[in-house]
């Protein structure tokens, strides 16, 4: 009886004390949706290496920009388009202008069984359009999602924008655009290469990397917001180190030259 009580008491004590194990508060991090898979892996690696945790929220960079202007409590912001970060810096919301951590790429994607044949010249898309086989085509919202804006640029560059513009379904962010593209409701879409490269998609969809010259580069910048704590700062530095860079490269990001120490 007493033993049982003691065991329960100890368990309760452990529960009560356990938050102290990570005395530093867990920082909130806002990240562009193209990082959904890569950054989750980086955060897991960060936790293994340092014992520290971060909380990730994914969305479109433009939406985060608006939320951060309105005082959202994120300590670190990873934007798929560095312009948003430079604007935040100019508004005095950040600690400096941050650093470039990756360059993103676009990919054409189509679910298995789609009439859209996938190639890096968009010849299949052009043919399917001519044959009237494209009813719906997914990209992220060009208004506030960098990948959507770049997808629109690529489509304009290849003169496919006029025939496609009325068939577009717009994802709120690029992850949702991919969701739309392969859900079966659309014949395909243009999304982030980093999301379709995941092995889990091999069985569900075909994809092709699109030429980087068709659109402005997706220069991705990360910045510490004013008042960021020590864990966020540590994670910021961690992004420049070999384990994080390896994960980003594995997910299809082009990497900037490593910073000189």
């Amino acid at each position, binding site marked *: 009886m007493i033993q049982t009580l003691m065991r329960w008491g100890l368990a309760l004590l452990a529960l009560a004390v356990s938050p102290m194990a990570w005395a530093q508060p867990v920082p909130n991090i806002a990240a562009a949706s193209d990082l*959904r898979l890569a950054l989750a892996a980086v955060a897991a690696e960060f936790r293994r290496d340092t014992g520290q945790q971060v909380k990730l929220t994914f969305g479109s960079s433009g939406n985060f920009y608006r*939320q951060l202007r*309105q*005082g*959202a*409590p994120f300590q670190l912001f990873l934007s798929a388009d560095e312009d948003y970060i430079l604007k935040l810096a100019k508004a005095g919301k950040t600690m400096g202008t941050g650093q470039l951590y990756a360059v993103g790429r676009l990919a054409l994607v189509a679910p298995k069984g789609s009439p859209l044949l996938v190639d890096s010249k968009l010849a299949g898309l052009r043919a399917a359009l001519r044959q009237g086989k494209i009813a719906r085509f997914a990209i992220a919202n060009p208004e506030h999602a960098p990948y959507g804006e770049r997808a629109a640029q690529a489509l304009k560059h290849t003169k496919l924008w006029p025939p496609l513009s009325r068939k577009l379904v717009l994802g709120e962010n690029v992850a949702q655009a*991919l*969701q739309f593209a392969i859900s079966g409701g659309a014949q395909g879409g243009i999304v982030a290469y980093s999301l379709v490269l995941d092995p889990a998609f091999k069985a569900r969809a075909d994809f092709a990397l699109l030429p980087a010259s068709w659109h402005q580069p997706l220069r991705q910048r990360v910045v510490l917001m004013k008042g960021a704590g020590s864990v966020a700062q540590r994670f910021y530095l961690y992004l420049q180190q070999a384990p994080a860079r390896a994960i980003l490269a594995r997910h299809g990001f082009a990497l900037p030259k490593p910073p000189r120490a």
Partner: protein
Amino acid sequence: MMDWQALRLSLLLGVLTVVILAPIALVVGRWLATTRLRGRAAIEAALTLPLVLPPTVIGFYLLVGLGPESPVGHGWISMFGQPLVFSFEGVLFASVLVNLPFAVQPTQRAFEAIGQDLRDAAATCGHSLWRTIWRIELPLAWPGIVTGAVLVFAHTLGEFGVVLMVGGSIPGETRTLALSIYDRVQAFDNASAARMAALLMAISLIAVTASFVLGGRSRKRA
């Protein structure tokens, strides 16, 4: 994977919304049921608005009205050092506002059903207003009040648009179960989304069934 943090947050939000709204619903509901004020219809209409407005409209006004540039948002920051939007407190405020009609209307109907005759009879017997409310009206109206509370709780669990706009889906702070499901779908994690959706459906079904059972009981008595 079940997002336990989001479940806890949803339940906490539901309970706190009910706790805050219960006294408001009692006072406003009874007042609306008994007042002969001319502007009553206008007040009732205003209280019903959250029921018919799109969540984006409410979310937009709350973002503007509570944001750091607004007087309320600015005052909040100078008091607590952090903005009201994108915080649990901000979402709680939004939740209370959105749920006003769900709390007030059933309570008001319950007090209306009691009828003026009974109130007059109680007064004739020498009961004070407070004694009438305490001994006669509340025992008769309580199924309506509880129905309101259950509806508020269930509706809070189901609220999506306003919470997303005002709260911004921050894990452990503003990401409720409904938002966590949305997040899982976007992360191509349909298995987790299905599990959480089923749980939310079960909770809602139990809650709404409870409100119908209570409603039925009050009708039998009347």
